[in-house]
């Protein structure tokens, strides 16, 4: 008898445990469902319905008709950066008034023909001794170099955008400052002594050199403006110097070999032929 009670007691305990297990699993499933529903509702609150935005009236330039203008042909600029600069500064802004148009394009033509360069302030100069097959040793200097065309492109566009923000400048005042910036960059070229030899200009100090170059390139300007460009103040706009130093640190570096003989330095060509204006469709 005692064995029967013993077996029945154990079987009862097992049955109770199984029933408790089934109820436990169903309870967990219900809890999970609740959490999922709460999460989905929280995500629904994050999504925002599309807003209704109304149109606005904005002034927009639209040039539909063909216009005939007196312009210099783009083949006379010879490098693509100078072409872009001429397009941006003269044609797009419609600055075709006379002393500025021909003077500014003359200095662009000169820089486009000659591959002038500026020494990179970050680079170091390494001397090399290279032996020929004839057992001659050539000494050359290696350094990083910046293209003057890229630098003048950066400086002039930056000066123009900086002047555009200040609303109190006239159109003619902006043109004078851009001419001053172009001359300031040209003087910084490393080959400026050879430029002076070929243009037959005396090289004494920086201010005298600037005076002579202005007389050569900007022939039609009045004498008062010429004097103001040559001064160190540049029409009381000292931001030209800070923009120039900013552009130097962000322009591309090119490797360059610089031999000490004079024949390799004298690569500066004369001013290009005085190209005349032509009637062009734009």
């Amino acid at each position, binding site marked *: 008898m005692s064995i029967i009670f013993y077996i029945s007691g154990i079987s009862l305990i097992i049955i109770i445990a199984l029933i408790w297990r089934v109820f436990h699993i169903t309870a967990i499933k219900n809890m999970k469902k609740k959490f999922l529903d709460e999460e989905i509702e929280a995500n629904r609150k994050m999504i925002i319905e599309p807003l209704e935005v109304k149109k606005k009236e904005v002034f927009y330039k639209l040039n539909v008709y063909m216009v005939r203008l007196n312009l210099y042909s783009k083949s006379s600029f010879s490098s693509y950066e100078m072409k872009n600069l001429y397009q941006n500064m003269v044609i797009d802004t419609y600055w075709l008034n006379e002393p500025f148009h021909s003077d500014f394009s003359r200095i662009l033509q000169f820089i486009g023909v000659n591959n002038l360069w500026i020494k990179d302030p970050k680079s*170091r100069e*390494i001397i090399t001794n290279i032996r020929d097959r004839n057992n001659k040793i050539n000494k050359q200097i*290696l350094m990083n170099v910046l293209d003057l065309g890229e630098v003048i492109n950066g400086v002039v566009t930056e000066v123009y955008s900086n002047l555009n923000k200040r609303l109190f400048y006239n159109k003619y005042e902006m043109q004078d400052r851009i001419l001053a910036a172009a001359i300031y960059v040209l003087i910084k070229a490393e080959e400026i002594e050879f430029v002076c030899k070929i243009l037959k200009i005396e090289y004494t100090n920086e201010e005298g050199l600037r005076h002579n170059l202005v007389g050569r390139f900007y022939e039609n300007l009045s004498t008062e403006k010429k004097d103001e460009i040559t001064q160190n103040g540049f029409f009381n706009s000292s931001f030209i110097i800070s923009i120039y130093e900013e552009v130097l640190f962000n322009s591309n570096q*090119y490797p360059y070999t610089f031999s000490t003989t004079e024949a390799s330095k004298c690569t500066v060509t004369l001013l290009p032929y005085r190209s005349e204006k032509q009637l062009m469709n734009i």
Partner: protein
Amino acid sequence: MLDEQINCVIPDNVDLIEIPVIRSKKISFVRAKERVKVKDKYYNYLRSMLIMVGEELITTNFADTVVLLAEIQKFDRGNKQNKYTEIERHKGDVNLKLNLTLGYIYISASESLAIFNMHKYSLQGISLVRIIDDEFVLTAESIATYLNKNKMLNKQG
């Protein structure tokens, strides 16, 4: 590999490293190492080895570096036919005078041993098979592009 030598073009899998040897006198090696991958395994080859002192590349050729290293190794046993160095005696000391375009430097006996040891250490794990047949024919322009590519023409420090 023949096209490289004709056009003086330097391939992409070559690295140029500046190995400082004696920091107080700015003597350093410039090593060009080629890396070739064959079946998940890298092989290193030496393609050129130059010596730089300060801001001047004294040798631009592997044969010239071997000559200079031999002169440094022989030290006081060299004679007047030395190409790059001169032996100078001053108050009992023997020094090696290395002429540069701007000035000169002196190399002592222990420094010459250090340079030669450093040359041995810099060749560890690198095969010398390609240095004789396929050495880079370096011109000034190719060295300039090469240094610019590895950003060694920028000022350091």
